Every structure is written in structure tokens, then in C-alpha cells.
């Protein structure tokens, strides 16, 4: 199993996409540090943009420099420090990077049918499943913490201590987010085992989350269901990750950790069951 993980490492460091991921991660960390606002790939976290627009209206200016400077002056010392936590709060961005990791390690192997080389003369299904899962989870965890460390380092260089909480606090915030992020990672592997196609996986993993959020928002507006409202306000992945990093509350944290663990276990069990039963073509 260790050899299989070593082989995956050998292959992943030879693919361009891992370097693209690191480049994007660094770029986002630099941009966030420079503009002193969390950058997001997804659309739902638009607080920062609203803040910018409000100040631009108040000041009647289109200059980003002027708006950012005004915004900075309006912030208290605590808010300035909390900015670093807000960046960690936008870690849903990492979902898109994890999508690529799962693709590179697992979906490509199944989609290209290279999996049969491993299963026919090297390993059995159980070892294959475990080694891929452990490798993906390790890579995702490493990526999540590297992102925190990258941002912490860059932010300290660009803005100094005034704009950052301690590294320990940032790592703690990241750790609280881990169950949800790893639950999502396990769910991505489930998509691969169900569809066994790289194209289907990419479509569902990338568009599915947007579709999911849209359907939830629509159902919330149409059905006025309190459970959906509560979910959207507190436990929808993007919101939950933000709250866990910026305003952690005991009850909310426990529910989020349980949600993450349940999603993780359910996905892993379903994936293994499907994989064990499936015919390798």
C-alpha cells in the first residue's frame, strides 16, 4: 500500500495541474493580503464586495485604493486581526483544488482504465481502495494546512502582526474546518466510484455544488421551510466553514464536526460497496 502511495506521489508531481494549484493558491493568498480581504472563487460569500460597494457609494469614488484605505481606517484593531481568520473562513475555495486532486489520483486512473494494470497484477480491490483514499485524504489535508501557512507567511510579510491572529489560532480554525472538508473529499471519491468517468466526475463535482446551492436557495424561497433556512444560515458548507473559522460556537462546531464525520463515513462505506461490486473494464 505504501508503494502504491509512493507511485501516486511520483505521478502527481509530474503533472502540471499540481503546480497550477499551488500557483493559484499563492496568488489568492497574495491578493487577499494586499487588498486585506478574503478572496473567493465561489459566488455566495459576497460580504467583502458589499462592503467595498457601500464605501464606494459613501465616498462617491471608483478608486479601489481609496476605498480600501477608507475601509482599513474604519476597522478596529480586532477587526484588522480577524481579517486573517476571514481568509481562512473562505476555505471553501479549496474544494476546487481538492476536486483536481481526486481527479488526478483516482478519477484519471479509473477513467483511463489504467486501474486494471494495478488490479490485475499488483493489488486487490481492498488495498487499492484504501491506498487511494489515504493518499487523497493526506494530500487534501496537506493542501488545507499549506494554504493556511502560505497565507500566514505572506500576510505577515505584507501586513505584519497587526493584521493577523497567531499562527496557532489560524491552525486551530483550520483544524475545526477539517471534518467538513474531508467529508466533501470523501464525497468526491464517491462520485468517481459511481460514475467511473472523468468527464462525469468533473461535471458533477464542479457544477453540482453550484446547482446544489441554487436548488437550496430556490427551495428556501418557495417552500419557506425553516429547516432549509437554518441549514443555509448555519450549516451550508461555505457558511459553516466561515463560522467555524471566524465565530466558532460550541454547539455549531459540534454539529459541523458530526456532519463532516457522517458525510465522510457514509461516502467511504458507499464508495467501497460500489467499488467492490463493480466490474473493472
Amino acid at each position, binding site marked *: 500500500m505504501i508503494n502504491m502511495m509512493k*507511485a501516486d506521489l*511520483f505521478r502527481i508531481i*509530474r503533472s502540471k495541474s499540481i503546480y497550477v494549484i499551488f500557483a493559484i493558491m499563492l496568488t489568492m493568498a497574495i491578493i487577499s493580503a494586499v487588498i486585506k480581504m478574503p478572496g473567493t472563487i465561489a459566488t455566495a460569500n459576497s460580504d467583502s464586495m458589499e462592503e467595498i460597494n457601500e464605501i464606494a457609494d459613501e465616498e462617491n469614488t471608483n478608486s479601489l485604493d481609496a476605498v480600501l484605505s477608507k475601509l482599513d481606517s474604519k476597522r478596529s484593531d480586532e477587526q484588522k486581526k480577524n481579517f486573517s481568520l476571514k481568509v481562512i473562513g473562505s476555505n471553501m475555495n479549496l474544494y476546487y483544488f481538492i476536486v483536481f486532486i481526486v481527479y488526478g489520483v483516482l478519477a484519471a486512473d479509473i477513467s483511463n482504465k*489504467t486501474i*486494471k*494494470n494495478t488490479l490485475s*497484477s499488483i493489488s*486487490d480491490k481492498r488495498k487499492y481502495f484504501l491506498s487511494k483514499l489515504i493518499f487523497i485524504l493526506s494530500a487534501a489535508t496537506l493542501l488545507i494546512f499549506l494554504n493556511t501557512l502560505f497565507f500566514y507567511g505572506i500576510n505577515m510579510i505584507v501586513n505584519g502582526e497587526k493584521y493577523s491572529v497567531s499562527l496557532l489560532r489560524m491552525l486551530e480554525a483550520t483544524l475545526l474546518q477539517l471534518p467538513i472538508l474531508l467529508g466533501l473529499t470523501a464525497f468526491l471519491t464517491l462520485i468517481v466510484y459511481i460514475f467511473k468517468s472523468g468527464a462525469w466526475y468533473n461535471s458533477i463535482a464542479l457544477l453540482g455544488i453550484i446547482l446544489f446551492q441554487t436548488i437550496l436557495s430556490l427551495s428556501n424561497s418557495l417552500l419557506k421551510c425553516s429547516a432549509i433556512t437554518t441549514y443555509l444560515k448555519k450549516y451550508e458548507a461555505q457558511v459553516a466553514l466561515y463560522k467555524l473559522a471566524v465565530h466558532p460556537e460550541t454547539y455549531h462546531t459540534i454539529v459541523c464536526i458530526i456532519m463532516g464525520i457522517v458525510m465522510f463515513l457514509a461516502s467511504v462505506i458507499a464508495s467501497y460497496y460500489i467499488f467492490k461490486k463493480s466490474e*473493472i473494464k
Partner: protein
Amino acid sequence: MKEVIVKTNQLTKKYDDFVALDNINMTVNKGDIYGLIGRNGAGKTTIMKIITGLTESSGGDYELFSKPSNKLGDEKGRIGCLIENPAFFNNLSAYNNLKYYAIQKGISDMSKIGEVLEMVKLKDIKDKKFRTFSLGMKQRLGIAFALMDDPDLVILDEPINGIDPIGISELRDTFTRLTRERGITFIISSHILSELYLIANRFMFIDKGKVLKEITHEELDAECMRCTVFRTNNVKKATALIEERLNIHDYKVIDNTEIRIYSDDIAPAVINTELVKNGISVSALFESGITLEEYFKSLVGGSTND
């Protein structure tokens, strides 16, 4: 007694109502080059997939290296495989593709990669990306993958697809040399009997999931070879006469009524006269012998699998 490498017992595979394999019994001994012959969809690949664990059987069982399938452990590492089309990572070179699997197998001596690439004549283009390979080159890389790590059993599914005639001849020499020098056992499938005939020492004919015949190279030769067939009621007396009077030694007794003479030094009419003169009645005399393809067709009966 030869060591048994693969043994299947009533191996069956069903997909809903469709029977892909129907009670297959097959024994492959150490050092065999075992040819699996059948048309497309006959069940050749399914047998290989079950043996290599890519799919599960619906019934029956099999042994690998004398170990039951449900107790296999490290035995898988003794197998080299090329099942169906060769699949590798497009963005990696031939060398790096093999290196990836060498790491998976725990091979520490990477010079083995160079050796197998040399064996399949891909060493000069080892740094070319897999995506730029022709079908023949892909096939060669698949064979190199199967031969890496000195396997005891090599399973090759239609390995000569897309390979040019000179390449096929070179691969034939490689397979026979590996069997001779290292005692490697091969199971090779093909729908072209004439190709397998040149390397295999045993054959299994399969059609619609059923074994039609398991036969050695010598037996196949005997069945196909041009010969004169004599049917008589006294085989014992007839063979004595053929050997002593006519000095013919190249013959075979098929059963207690039939003798086949492969030598064409003496005309059939002369043999017939001699037999009759000595009181041996001949109930039938005719020339026989068919090509390999005719033999194959006679077995499968010309029906289609579609």
C-alpha cells in the same frame, strides 16, 4: 509431474441471463505457452479477467500457483498482464509509465525498465509521451509492463494487435526464449490460430463460453496434417505389417479401427494392396488433412457470436 500454474474448475460467468463462461475446466502447467483461441466474444478475455481478479466468477473456482482463489496473497505479484487494450497515462512517457508501476510493485532496480523496453524495442523512444504512441507501440508497452519484474505467469490478451509482421516475429522469439530460459508460463489469447500455432505448445478452443477442445501442439499437428487414413478391423496386424513390410514409421493409431499414415513415400494404393494381400480388410481409405483455419472453422461450426 509438472507444476500446475493455473487450474480452473467449472468456472462460470453470467451477466443476467447471458452465459459468458460455461463450466470451463483448464489446466496450465509451468513452462506452457497456452493459447486461448476463439472468436470475438467467445469468452477468452473473461477467463483472463477472472484469473487476474478483474471480475468475479458466478460459479466454479480456480487455483493460481496451487493456491485457491480465495486464499491468494502475494501470488498476484508473480503475474504479468496485458488485458484488452493497453492503458497507460497519456501525460507520462513510456519510461515514466513503467516507473509508476515499478514503484507500485516495489521494484527497486529500475534498470529492469530499460531491459523490458529493450526487449519490446521501445528503448529509443522511452521518453516519448504515451499519447503520441501508435497502436503497435502501445501494445509493445503493454507487453513490456507484463514482462517487468520477472513474472512467473504472463497473461496476454490479443498481444499482437496492431503490431507489424516483423514485430510479431520478434515478440514470438522473445516469448519462446523467456519460456525456455526463465521457465515463464504464458497464457496468450488470439482469434488468429496461425499466429498462436507458431508459439503455443497447448491450445484451448473456446466458443460461446464453452470449451470446444483442449489440445497439444502435437495433437493439433496430427489432426491437421495431410495423411492417408485407413480404416480396418485389425489395427494390430495392420501396424505390424506397415512397419515391417513397408518400413513406415511415421503413422499414428487413432483408435481400434483407424490408422493415419503421414509419410507420403509410399502410394496409398500400394499400402492398400499389401494390407489386402495379407488378409487385412480395409473398410475405408482416403486422404485427409486441413489447414489450421479450416480446423478452427470445423470446431466452431461457422456460427456467429453476434
